[in-house]
């Protein structure tokens, strides 16, 4: 391979020639995610048309203009399609811009891709790491300069991330591109990235910055208003880091966070903020919609429909942001609204309204059709009277007369929608069946963290794309899409229905907004109520925190254990009232213990506390009656308690808890301390070792602490003598 030969010659002059290295880039032509299913089952994401131009062209065109001289396109899913496309495109014939492809079939993540690239030994200097679905027009000069200078000073500055200002919606907590909100902490002066949190856990109301961060940096800025452009300038070390840490899969979640947490190697990541230029990655359907609109509104200039930048046919820009390619057949009664792109050779019938939409090449649109905010790719046939709002319609789809697509619908390649059929909102329709659950076990796991494999889709495609079989199987399901319809409606299970509206191309409906606002407010109120119901501990912390919603986890472990005790008590009381079997109670307490991360001595303490409390709360007339009740409770539940007393330590904990209780909440029971202690001993719940250790520990304590020792003195004495006799 040419690249390798070149690499071999370069290694020798490596050090001093670093500055003269041609700028290289790694373009990942695979997003390793499943967000664009079902379309990506048939065509790789980078080849999907974005305003009638395959996405990868935007990325390549930008790389070329930014001064990159050599691009390695990493292909994984549908690699043949990508390679074929590139071979037939003009990218291979550009002067000063080398495009090479690297193919791999077993990579399931960006991490794997970078490991493959490392093995090929083709990267020799700083390189730009970008995904093939990124649109940008920024200038790299400054960011590169900064990166190089930092690198000169500090060899550990391995990466510069490009960020851009974009405030997420306070209600949905997602950016306008439909990605999750992002929290970053950046050093004010050096721009070093110190903290990174995407996929924010909404149940957590706070961000926790490690104390060492502020010790090392006097001033840092926490950002919630920045967007990650997924354009990184990396030093070659990044590749070897991926190889060293073979478990790094995701660029952000594993690599960036891994470096930030790792303080041994001291690698540093910096940020570069762009202000006026554009950069965005298409991560989901919503960003597809938003980026398309940005392109039409010329934020991405020069990558706009009327400028020829990579084999696209230039459309003519008319007023109100209307782009029309030549050779359009348009009925004079049709209305084409603002911000619309219409591809070459498309026919539009009479009284048809199109607004805010992109229509591809060679489409046939009948009359009385209404298209709004939709993306219609090439060779689509839309018969009379159809209605499309905020949908994506792939190549070769046929909509029979009167079909209605509700917002958020995605129709994959060659689907046919029957006459008058109404496709429900957010449904995804494909000729291919949805991969069944057992088929995609492993994949679903990845889908959750969105670094999924496309291996399955690859297999599915090759297996099933032999037309006949597909149409056969789909015809049996014809009723699913109305008469004459072909295709399957995918059931929404991945990510759940909850997520659909977040990432769909349809705008978020107003009632959804109201709903979220309502729920968050309810949450606040609920939490506040819970908070005020808590006993006022008098401490500032619990007091003020409980008033503020979402702050529960801020309470330190002390409050945690208080909650734990309460839960155990509630469990225990329920067990008493409902006669739950001891085994079940043990199971429940065990699960509580795991969820609160408590030790078994905590459990023992809490259970004993609940038992005594139960005894105290049962009405009694005299101390002897109380003793009787306590005896009953203890003998009924001794098995429960015993199961948490494997060692002496736990037993001591019980005694201490008992002591504490006698001093604080249950003064009434304090005269019975010695008697109950003896009872516990008789029942074999507490061994003599524990009691003696406790007594010895208390030897040196204050007089006030010794009240109970004194009370139990006789008993302890007896125990001591007994053990001596044994000896």
């Amino acid at each position, binding site marked *: 391979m040419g690249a390798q030969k070149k690499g071999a010659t370069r290694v020798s002059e490596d050090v001093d020639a670093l500055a003269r290295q041609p700028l290289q880039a790694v373009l990942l032509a695979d997003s390793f995610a499943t967000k664009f299913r079902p379309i990506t089952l048939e065509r790789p994401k980078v080849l999907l048309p974005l305003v009638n131009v395959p996405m990868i062209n935007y990325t390549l065109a930008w790389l070329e203009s930014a001064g990159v001289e050599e691009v390695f396109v990493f292909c994984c899913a549908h690699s043949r399609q990508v390679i074929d496309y590139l071979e037939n495109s003009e990218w291979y014939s550009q002067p000063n811009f080398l495009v090479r492809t690297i193919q791999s079939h077993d990579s399931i993540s960006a991490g794997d891709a970078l490991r493959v690239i490392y093995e090929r030994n083709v990267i020799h200097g700083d390189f730009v790491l970008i995904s093939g679905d990124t649109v940008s027009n920024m200038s790299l000069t400054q960011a590169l300069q900064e990166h190089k200078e930092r690198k000169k000073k500090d060899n550990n500055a391995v990466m510069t991330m490009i960020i851009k200002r974009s405030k997420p919606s306070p209600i949905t907590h997602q950016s306008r591109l439909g990605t999750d909100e992002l929290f970053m902490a950046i050093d004010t002066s050096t721009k070093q990235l110190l903290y990174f949190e995407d996929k924010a856990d909404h149940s957590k109301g706070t961000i926790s910055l490690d104390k060492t961060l502020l010790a090392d940096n*006097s001033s840092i800025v926490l950002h919630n208003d920045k967007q990650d452009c997924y354009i990184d300038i990396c030093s070659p070390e990044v590749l070897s880091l991926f190889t060293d840490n073979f478990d790094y899969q995701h660029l952000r979640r594993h690599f960036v966070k891994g470096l930030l947490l790792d303080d041994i190697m001291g690698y540093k990541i910096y940020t570069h903020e762009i202000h006026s230029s554009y950069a965005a990655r298409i991560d989901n359907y919503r960003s597809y919609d938003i980026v398309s609109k940005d392109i039409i509104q010329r934020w991405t200039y020069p990558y706009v429909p009327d400028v020829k930048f990579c084999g696209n046919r230039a459309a003519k820009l008319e007023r109100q942001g209307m782009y029309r390619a030549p050779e359009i057949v348009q009925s004079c009664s049709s209305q084409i609204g603002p911000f619309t792109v219409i591809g070459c050779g498309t026919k539009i019938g009479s009284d048809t309204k199109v607004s805010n939409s992109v229509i591809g090449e060679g489409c046939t649109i009948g009359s009385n059709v209404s298209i709004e905010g939709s993306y219609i790719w090439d060779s689509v046939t839309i018969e009379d009277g159809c209605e499309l709002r905020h949908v994506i319609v792939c190549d070769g789809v046929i909509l029979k007369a009167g079909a209605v697509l509700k917002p958020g619908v995605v129709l994959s390649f060659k689907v046919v929608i029957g006459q008058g059929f109404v496709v429900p909102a957010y449904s995804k329709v494909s000729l291919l069946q949805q991969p069944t659950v057992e088929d995609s076990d492993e994949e679903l796991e990845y889908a959750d963290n969105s670094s999924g494999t496309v291996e399955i889709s690859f297999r599915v495609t090759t297996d099933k794309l032999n037309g006949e079989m597909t149409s056969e199987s789909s015809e049996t399901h014809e009723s699913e899409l109305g008469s004459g319809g072909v295709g399957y409606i995918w059931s929404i299970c991945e990510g759940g229905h909850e997520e659909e509206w977040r990432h769909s191309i349809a705008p978020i409906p107003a009632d959804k907004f109201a709903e979220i606002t309502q729920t968050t407010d309810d949450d606040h109120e609920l939490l*506040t109520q819970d908070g005020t119901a808590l006993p006022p501990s008098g401490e500032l912390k619990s*007091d003020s925190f409980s008033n503020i919603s979402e702050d529960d986890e801020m309470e330190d472990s002390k409050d945690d254990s208080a909650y734990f005790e309460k839960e155990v008590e509630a469990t225990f009381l329920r067990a008493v009232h409902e006669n739950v079997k001891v085994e079940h109670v043990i199971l429940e307490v065990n699960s509580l213990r795991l969820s609160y991360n408590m030790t078994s001595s905590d459990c023992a303490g809490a259970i004993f506390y609940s038992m005594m409390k139960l005894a105290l709360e049962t009405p009694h007339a005299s101390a002897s009656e109380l003793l009787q009740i306590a005896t009953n409770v203890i003998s009924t539940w001794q098995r429960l308690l015993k199961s948490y007393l494997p060692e002496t330590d736990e037993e001591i904990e019980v005694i201490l808890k008992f002591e504490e209780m006698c001093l604080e909440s249950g003064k009434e029971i304090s005269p019975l301390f010695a008697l109950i202690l003896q009872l516990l001993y008789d029942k074999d719940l507490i061994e003599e070792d524990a009691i003696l250790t406790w007594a010895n520990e208390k030897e040196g304590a204050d007089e006030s602490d010794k009240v109970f020792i004194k009370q139990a003195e006789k008993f302890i004495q007896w125990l001591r003598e007994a053990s001596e006799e044994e000896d």
Partner: protein
Amino acid sequence: MDFQVVVLAGGTSKKLVPLVSKEVPKALLPVANRPVLSFVLEQLELSNLKDLIVVVEGQDAALCVGGWISAAYADRLHVEVAAVPEDVGTAGALRSIARHLTAKDILVVSGDLVSDVPPGAVAAAHRRHDAVVTAMLCTAPVSGPSDSGFSGGKDKTKKPGRYNIIGMDPTKQFLLYIATGAEVEKDTRIQKNILHAVGQMEVRGDLMDAHMYAFKRSVLQEVLDQKDTFQSLRQDVLPYLVRSQLKSEVLVNGASQAPPEENGNEKNSSLNNHMMLSRILANASMPSFHELYASDRSGSAPVRRTHKCCAYIASNSNYCTRLNSIQAFMDINRDVIGEANHLSGYSFSAHNNIIDPSAELGSKTTVGPYCMLGEGSQMGDKCSVKRSVIGRHCRIGSNVKIVNSVVMNHVTIGDGCSIQGSVICSNVQLQERVILKDCQVLWFLQAVSIRQSLWLEKRNKYKG
């Protein structure tokens, strides 16, 4: 200005024992031969804030302070001196004088603050934003509290001291987060909803809460009433208000008692007017994030209650230190006659020092720059004084060296003594050839002879 000032003058702080005593409460400790409290009072007077309540812990101390104030400021300031029990905390002190508070806004200043930041600027910032609380922040001393010229750089490895962790909005006007005390050493936890509202927050560890706050009175009193466990303004009240600024409770619960302009149940129009007014006052074309957060998307009636917590950041050139430790006492004394000498209010001689005309100097005695010699003090021959403050009516023998030290009033020092980095309290007598080095405090000492010198070197504090 409808501002009432509360000066928290403290009592006999334990940290400052043995400098303070029943006769000399903290507020009256001499800084450049003036009580430290006078620095605050002068600044207030300069800002035309003349309605003051000086709160002193303990009856005896209150009498001392009251006596001094009535003598010194009788015709210049309207001062009430209130005594509160000891150990009630700053919040407790305000609680006990609550009935005296009548103005719309209250400025609370710590009496041990030596600063040239105009209190009026803090008050103005408070008014401008219609804030519930405004806190003055100053740059934390770069060297740790104990690392200064006096202790001879023992702690050079120490990092800049961190007293607070403070979060602010990008315009540095609003206080979004504050951690004090032990929280500073823990991981910083920042509420996401504040971040959502404001977008970006600058978190800094190099600022310090300077103990000058402006409060809206109604809110302050409400918080003090409701949260009866709050002890300290710095550790309880301020963090509470900052934390709850987007989930304000103070105005909700106080709706019945609060003055009408704070009552949230008013008509929209007047609320909008109110918002507009505060925006005009704040000289901002955009509504602040508080208002945006409160009004939600619809932009009409506020659905959430918020209040504003502001910060006033003293510029780096300002001097701002609190006299809250013995080390600080020495540092401030040195600075006030040294780098920050504009604070002292004295006019310096050509040699950059102040020698009272009534002081007598022997032959070949030199008093270096940044020194002060009080009235009626006498010095013998061949003495040398560097960077030190010497009080009134001291008698100092010959061949005495005084470097980096504070000598209070009526001190007698024998011939040949050498004093470095020490504080010598009033009425101490030193016999001949006593050597004191980094011996921080000497008090009630009747007589020290040469035999005790070495021993003194080892002990930091000595009482005869």
